[in-house]
């Protein structure tokens, strides 16, 4: 018999103390589960459960073996994990929660292809929280939005993603080819949380003011519900969301700048961090339409005499 598998069944039944529930958790029918527990009891020569009462209980022997069984199951799982990932290295990364799922998937896949030995563990956290997570060592490398000021951090190549505007499908501007920021007047704006993206907040809102758009209210959040409801607009890369329209912004005034970030004193993981940075640059260019940060062309400001006299 496959002892480890039977021990796993035992652990689940012991946790649920209910054969029906345990069977659901294990994704199998109840009769074969009962049979396998019986076979395990025969194999070990002791009863593990007391089925006489209305509720299933662990016997004294069952209690004794439960801890040991858990240990064995966990170790075997870890053994399999190690077998899959060679030396079992783990690189913990932070990514902004509003990064498209497909981009996160491409990052993980791209990194795995280059480093099959290292497991990438992504956590979705905003820039400001990534900065503290990097300082505390909770993550090894982050993908942050600029501007970000943090001593002791090094940054990878900065990439730029021009932002368009997401509008409710029935917004009159949804028909326009391009939208000038000033035409958003009267609409409220949805932004990522200010606490998590302070630099992006300040920069974007200042740019809006420069271009004649001062939102009456700035909502904070990552979901697009308010946009769908027609109560706000949001800036973002081109996206195909049912019920929403995406339009480019005339003159590309709003651009998101991102790069990887890591602690200057990263130590042993330095190679992996460098590898991740390289994969991130490649992936963000391919999957997220980002480009090298060029010198932004100087914005032309009209000198119509009547506006200045």
């Amino acid at each position, binding site marked *: 018999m496959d002892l480890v598998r039977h021990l796993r069944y035992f652990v689940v039944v012991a946790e649920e103390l209910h054969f029906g529930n345990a069977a659901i958790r294990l994704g199998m029918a109840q009769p074969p589960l009962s049979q396998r527990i019986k076979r395990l009891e025969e194999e070990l020569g002791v009863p593990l459960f007391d089925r006489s009462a209305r509720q299933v209980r662990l016997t004294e022997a069952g209690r004794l073996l439960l801890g040991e069984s858990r240990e064995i199951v966990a170790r075997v799982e870890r053994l399999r994990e190690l077998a899959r990932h060679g030396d079992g290295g783990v690189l913990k990364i932070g990514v902004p929660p509003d990064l498209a799922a497909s981009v996160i998937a491409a990052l993980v896949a791209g990194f795995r292809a280059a480093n099959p030995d290292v497991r990438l563990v992504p956590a979705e956290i905003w820039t400001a929280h990534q900065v503290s997570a990097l300082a505390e060592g909770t993550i090894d490398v982050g993908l942050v939005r600029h501007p970000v000021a943090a001593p002791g951090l090094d940054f990878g190549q900065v990439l730029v993603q021009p932002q368009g505007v997401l509008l409710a499908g029935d917004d009159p501007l949804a028909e326009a080819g391009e939208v000038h920021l000033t035409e958003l007047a009267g609409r409220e704006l949805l932004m990522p949380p200010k606490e998590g993206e302070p630099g992006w907040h300040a920069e974007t809102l200042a740019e*809006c*003011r*420069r271009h004649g758009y*001062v939102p009456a209210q700035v909502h904070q959040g990552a979901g697009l519900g308010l946009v769908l409801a027609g109560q706000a607009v949001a800036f973002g890369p081109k996206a195909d969301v049912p019920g929403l329209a995406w339009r480019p912004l005339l003159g590309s005034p709003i651009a998101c700048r991102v790069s990887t970030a890591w602690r200057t004193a990263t130590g042993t993981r330095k190679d992996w961090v460098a590898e991740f940075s390289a994969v991130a640059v490649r992936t963000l260019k391919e999957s997220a339409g980002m480009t090298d940060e060029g010198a932004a062309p100087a914005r032309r400001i009209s000198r119509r005499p*009547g506006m200045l*006299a």
Partner: protein
Amino acid sequence: MSDPDYAALFRMAGVTGWLHACDIDSGREAGHDADEPVPLASVFKLPLLVEFCRQADAGLLDATAPTTVTADRRVSGPTGLSAMLDDVTMSLRDLAYLMMAVSDNTSADVLLDRVGMEAVNTMLDAFGLDGTRLRQSGRALFESMELDTGHGWPYLDPDDISRLRVLDPARTNRSTPREMTRLLSMIWRDEAATPESCSWMRAVLNMQVWPHRLASGFPYDDVEVGGKTGSLPTLRTEVGVVEYPDGGRYAVAVFTRSSSTAVIQPRADAVIGTAARMAVDHLRR
């Protein structure tokens, strides 16, 4: 009858506004924060014009005397001599015309040198307009913006804007909406200078070229609108007089500050006309 909701009107246009309007003949008035000190921007050219006329009336200067403005005396600006390249010779009163009709900064500073800033302030004191004060020439206005921000035009950064002395009534040419309508009323009632000079000032004010602010609120062939605009980063203003076909005459002063720093904001320009119209309609009711 309740006062019009000026605040809501200004808010819709993305600005904060200060307004005073009065019937020049009956003295009836309407206002919205009408006694707040406001930066004058190019409206400082109006009291300068009045003192220029008074000195001409008094024989202190000859308004028709040819004056040569050499290219090196140019002051920044988008119009008039400021936009020209070569030496120019014209009479003082033609310089005054350019100063008012197209807000020419170079002409204004030539006249200010001639008339004297303190003479203008003394005249304002004599008129009882002690909330109106000149401190800076056109050149000084531009230079202080460069000093405050460390760079030249354009000024679009909210941080830069908050540092500009030219937007702080305590540190630049200043007045209040109410004092501006009083000065205009004096010109229209022949009290600011001799009747001949007042008549000429009214003609010059009616020759101002800009249609987008005060005049935009009165789009009728038989309504006359004369005035003087003023513009600085986020500041848009016009003070002027509207004359109705039935003889009604109304002095109006509207000052606005926009929350956006964009230079081109047609709604912020137009609300000056809309608010003025609202006030005049209120006075005519």
